[in-house]
């Protein structure tokens, strides 16, 4: 299974392992907040994020023996979550191509002074197609490098870089020029 392979290869797990040095209750206590927040960034709704969080820990419980390095539990849980999410989403939303040079140049001179609220940020994320959203959340939330993202998602590095650029162009357009872009909302911030 892809889930097993991803977990075994990239997140300190061992598919042939017999037992894990951590128990699931500890994982829940230590990581449920981060897992929920990560899920929320992907699905944009509190109830769906809770469901995704629960599904993640249920699967983690079943595969707990594969987790050999407790210090990498966070990444392992995120990998499970991403797989649950990818399995759940069925209708990818196309993202309109945007002029890359124009978008980069459109960043205001003083970005540091810009502010936008959580609702606007989530709306911008929700407007992204699922494949772009995954890359963006891995980049910003997990702070994964483009190489790690490519490895985790098993896609070429060039594809990751292209998706990052297009998704971030869209984000910048939504967040730094909100009046010029209308975005659909699928949920409200918790």
């Amino acid at each position: 299974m892809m889930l097993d392979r991803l977990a075994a290869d990239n997140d300190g797990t061992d598919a042939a392992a017999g037992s894990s040095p951590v128990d699931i209750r500890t994982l829940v206590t230590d990581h449920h907040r981060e897992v929920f927040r990560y899920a929320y960034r992907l699905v944009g709704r509190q109830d769906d994020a809770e469901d995704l969080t629960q599904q993640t820990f249920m699967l983690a419980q079943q595969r707990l023996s594969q987790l050999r390095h407790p210090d990498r539990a966070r990444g392992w849980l995120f990998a499970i979550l991403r797989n649950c999410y990818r399995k759940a989403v069925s209708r990818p939303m196309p993202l309109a191509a945007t002029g890359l040079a124009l978008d980069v140049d459109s960043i205001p001179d003083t970005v540091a002074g810009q502010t936008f609220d959580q609702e606007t940020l989530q709306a911008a994320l929700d407007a992204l197609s699922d494949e772009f959203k995954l890359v963006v959340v891995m980049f910003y939330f997990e702070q994964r490098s483009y190489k790690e993202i490519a490895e985790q998602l098993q896609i070429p590095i060039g594809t990751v870089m292209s998706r990052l650029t297009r998704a971030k162009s869209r984000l910048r357009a939504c967040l730094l020029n909100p009046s010029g872009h209308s975005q659909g909302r699928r949920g409200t911030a918790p």
Partner: protein
Amino acid sequence: MSERRHFEAIDACRPNSDDLRQPEMADLAEALQVDPRLGSNYQRSQEFDAIVVRMMPDLPVPDGLEERLLLALTTSQDADRESREAGEWFDDNCRTKGQAVQPRAAREHVPATARDGVGRRPRGRRWAWTLAAASLVAAGAVAAVLVLAPSFTAIEPRADEQLPREILAWVDAVVREGWNTDFEAERVRRRPLDLAVRATPRRWCSIRTRYDPQTAVYDVSSRDADFALAFCMDAPVRTSLLPEIPPWNPQPATGGLTVGVWRRGNLVYVLACRGGTRRYRELIEGTSLIG
């Protein structure tokens, strides 16, 4: 490196990281030194990314989430244990019956051939051999019926003491399977949600049960902490007197669930929810008679 590639490389650099020192970024690092416009873009991109990185995890977590997760995990463990116990019971019983039949068949066969020897069998002996073979076949058939009968007769879930135990295993299967929101799928059309259920399904999935390998499961929960699932199975052969409408009086099940079972034509429905009889009746209100 083209301008487009430069922009992609800029966007691939994380804020406050050494990404720019990676070998693949050598061209960009060089270009940043000689192209002020590119350098400015890089700086602004880094500032923007730093803001988003700060905001990303800044979300409140719902009250009681940890407790709800731990409860769900405990419930799932209970279901696993009960499924294992049920499986062991089935294996033990099947194995016992199979082993009881085989030695008897062997005993009936061996003496007949041993007595006959290698020469021409007398007519009386041939009749005896035929009779023994017929007995063997009959014994095998009886044994097969004894072993397989439970799986053939259990073609319709019944609201007895077994179903509530199975429900938790089904819930566990739902968790493993994951949800789908495409309500146009063929599997959903073949096993639609009964109109007697007064809730709008949020999502569905298909799981294997021993009654129907493509059992449809609908999430009919309405609130954040709500739990309500409707299972729909294609079970054309009736083996019990299930009501034609949702029973007004449900039965309790393991894991704090409340369960009601009914049949509509060839389809059998199982509604399982948390919140007791009150919540169950909310889900079927106005569609059922007292039963």
